[in-house]
């Protein structure tokens, strides 16, 4: 696979330099690991850049929308991050220090994200920040993290086309999520024609672009339609007629928010039976099914890296812990799980680096392996995204998914995919 050589100017520089950094990072990590387990090292040694670290505490920020339209989606991430931090604290904290949370509300307003990010970095001196959900909020906050050399763990699956020294992306970028599932549907269902329907903004458009290139250039099949609707659109009868006219083998959707609900209800009402018509979506997790209603979407295939129903020992511990903390009725979607990874990945990087200093933590991150992830084994790539598996699962009427396919290997993250732009 093509190695990424397209780091941004703030990124990790040449491959040579990257190797150097990784090498450097490895040395102290080896030396520090055992010490971290026994006693807390002195603060002066682990914090040379004035972060909010005391002998007993280290401050970490959480920056999501607790209010506004995005609160719906971001609540799960906040819950997962809090759970992870509680678990870390219960196990002794990070370098012998308990994590103290400062939570800020981005209020679904992008400048607020930039403001609060600045507050968390400049006023509160947070050692790291778990946060952001939409691309827009990340784009707004990113310059702040780069300017003040902060560290952001970003949980959402997103369109890629970005890589920053100051961000660890714990969700999948578009190629990871899409390519493998397209291969699966082509092979398993013999799909020859695709119809793509998305909400009109950057993530669906970029994702569909990648999907189209793959469908046309790699699978050598065809796209018979590509449609976008404004966010919040609720009338899909015309496009459903187009589906009936073009009769695609696969409907590929990335519709989001309230539109999602309307789309599946109308699809079902129009007599398109998802047990016969293959529908592949990259925008529906367990969270979304709550609002859509399981009976409206049952039979659709969703591709994500994580589903609540995943059967592995890690997940069988994670799901009950999550429900114990946040209630029996809560559901856990892909992003929630990705958010849960953030604090652990940070803890491991800090302990490997033996320091809270952002530069050292960043340097220690590539190559880190996290074997206790609910999704299974993940590994941080030098481009700051995660190696992860992709899974395809079928929605059931009870709102859960049944995993029908899992990529055999971890898929390499490739935020700037050659040939897909």
């Amino acid at each position, binding site marked *: 696979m093509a190695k990424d050589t*397209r780091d941004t*100017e703030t990124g990790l520089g040449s491959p040579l330099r990257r190797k150097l950094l990784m090498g450097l990072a490895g040395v102290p990590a080896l030396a520090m690991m055992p010490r971290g387990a026994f006693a807390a090292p002195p603060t002066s040694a682990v914090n040379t850049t004035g972060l909010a670290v005391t002998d007993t505490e280290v401050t970490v920020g959480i920056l999501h929308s607790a209010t506004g339209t995005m609160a719906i989606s971001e609540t799960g991430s906040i819950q997962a991050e809090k759970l992870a931090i509680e678990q870390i604290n219960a196990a002794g904290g990070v370098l012998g220090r308990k994590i103290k949370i400062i939570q800020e*509300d981005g209020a679904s307003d992008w*400048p607020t994200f930039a*403001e609060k990010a*600045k507050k968390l970095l*400049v006023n509160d001196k947070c050692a790291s920040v778990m946060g952001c959900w939409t691309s*827009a909020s990340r*784009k707004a906050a990113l310059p702040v993290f780069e300017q003040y050399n902060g560290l952001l763990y970003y949980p959402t699956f997103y369109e890629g086309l970005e890589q920053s020294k100051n961000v660890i992306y714990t969700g999948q970028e578009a190629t990871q999520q899409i390519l493998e599932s397209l291969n699966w549907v082509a092979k398993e269902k013999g799909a020859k024609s695709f119809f793509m329907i998305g909400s*009109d903004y950057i993530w669906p458009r970029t994702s569909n672009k990648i999907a189209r290139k793959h469908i046309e250039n790699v699978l050598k099949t065809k796209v018979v339609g590509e449609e976008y609707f404004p966010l919040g659109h609720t009338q899909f009868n015309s496009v459903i007629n187009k589906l009936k006219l073009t009769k695609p083998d696969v409907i590929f959707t990335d519709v989001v928010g309230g539109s999602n609900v309307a789309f599946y209800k109308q699809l079902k009402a129009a007599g398109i039976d998802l047990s016969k018509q293959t529908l592949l979506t990259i925008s529906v997790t367990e969270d979304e099914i709550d609002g859509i209603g399981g009976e409206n979407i049952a039979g659709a295939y969703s591709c994500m890296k994580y589903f609540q129903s995943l059967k592995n020992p890690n997940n069988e511990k994670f799901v009950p812990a999550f429900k114990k903390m946040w209630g029996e009725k809560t559901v856990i979607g892909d992003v929630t799980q990705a958010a849960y990874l953030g604090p652990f990945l940070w803890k491991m990087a800090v302990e490997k680096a033996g320091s809270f200093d952002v530069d050292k933590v960043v340097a220690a991150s590539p190559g880190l392996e996290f074997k206790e992830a609910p999704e299974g084994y993940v590994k941080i790539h030098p481009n700051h995204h995660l190696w992860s598996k992709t899974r395809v699962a079928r929605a059931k009427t009870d709102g859960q998914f049944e995993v029908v396919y899992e990529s055999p290997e971890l898929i390499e993250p490739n935020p700037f995919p050659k040939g897909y732009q």
Partner: protein
Amino acid sequence: MTNPVQTLSKSLTVNDNPFMKPVEWLSLLLLAGVILVVLPLALDAFRLNLVGKYLTYAFVALGLVICWGYAGILSLGQGVFFGLGGYCMAMYLKLEASSVENTKIQSTPGIPDFMDWNQITALPWFWTPFKSLPLTLLLVIAVPVAFAFIISVAMFKRRVGGTYFAIITQAIAAILTILIVGQQGFTGGINGITDLRTLNGWDIRTDHAKFILYFVNGGLLIGCILLAQYVKKSKLGRILVAMRDKEDRVRFSGYSVAGFKVFAFCLAAAFAAIGGAMFTLQVGFMSPSFVGIVPSIEMVIYAAVGGRLSLFGAVWGTLLVNFAKTSFSESFPDLWLFGLGALFIAVVLAFPNGLAGIWREHIEPRLTRRAKSLRPPEPIAVPRGVPHGAPAE
């Protein structure tokens, strides 16, 4: 309301229509003092930048005082002009940040990153003027004003007024948002235009730059207040009030009513555009979330809270609502929307003249009573009362 009957024995011989009355000079001094002296001394760089952001909304509120308070034209689309001004500025900054060497990893270096992601290989024609700073500064005002001119000429010549105008401007805000989000190759889509760095080589991201921009912003705001005050005090200001009252009478006094409405609307658009450009400079990006219906209506409430007839009130109202929003939403996020909603209702039901009304009806009379022995009361020349919306035609 009772007003002491004034005789004109003396007043016609002195200047009875000064540019600003002593009270207004004091208000201006107070506002300038707070914005330019007190806040910069009292707040750290982070909070000051926040105030700077709030003050950019005050430009919009100021325009609404002229356009809504004085001329009776309620626009629910001021976000359009704020956004256009902001986008014009952002386009210049983005081009500067997208120099060939900064973007050499792209397939087409030298164009903004989001264009490259959307397979655009050459700069679209309407971006080219924004390579030049002087041209940009001109367009920041000219584009929104031209747009406002087209809308308002079309509507006011045909006597669309009142509620209809409000609803149509709202629809325009909705259309523009969908367009900006949909045409992401040209506009940056829903993420907006982000990662802006330098203005003509000067790094706007540093604390020092933000400090200077804050003062530029404050200075511009005071300048706009003075300009608005000039308009308000001129005969044109009185014609606007007269039009709001009895449009036909003004028309049959030989005025082209539409022309004056167009002027008021364009002036408000120009103010909003300046605010938008300063917003981009201080916050470092521009996105369609400032163009739509919700921000547009919120900006109306700033003016309403301050007092729809008071220029200074508009600024205070903006600051107050935003401070409340920031602090309230931090401590009681769930209650914030209740609070904001209640604020809308309270302002409309109980305090239709906002902060300025409370000041004039409850505080000023007491002060005047005390000062009465010292000097005779001011002649009443400022319109009071809530404008009744022009009837829909």
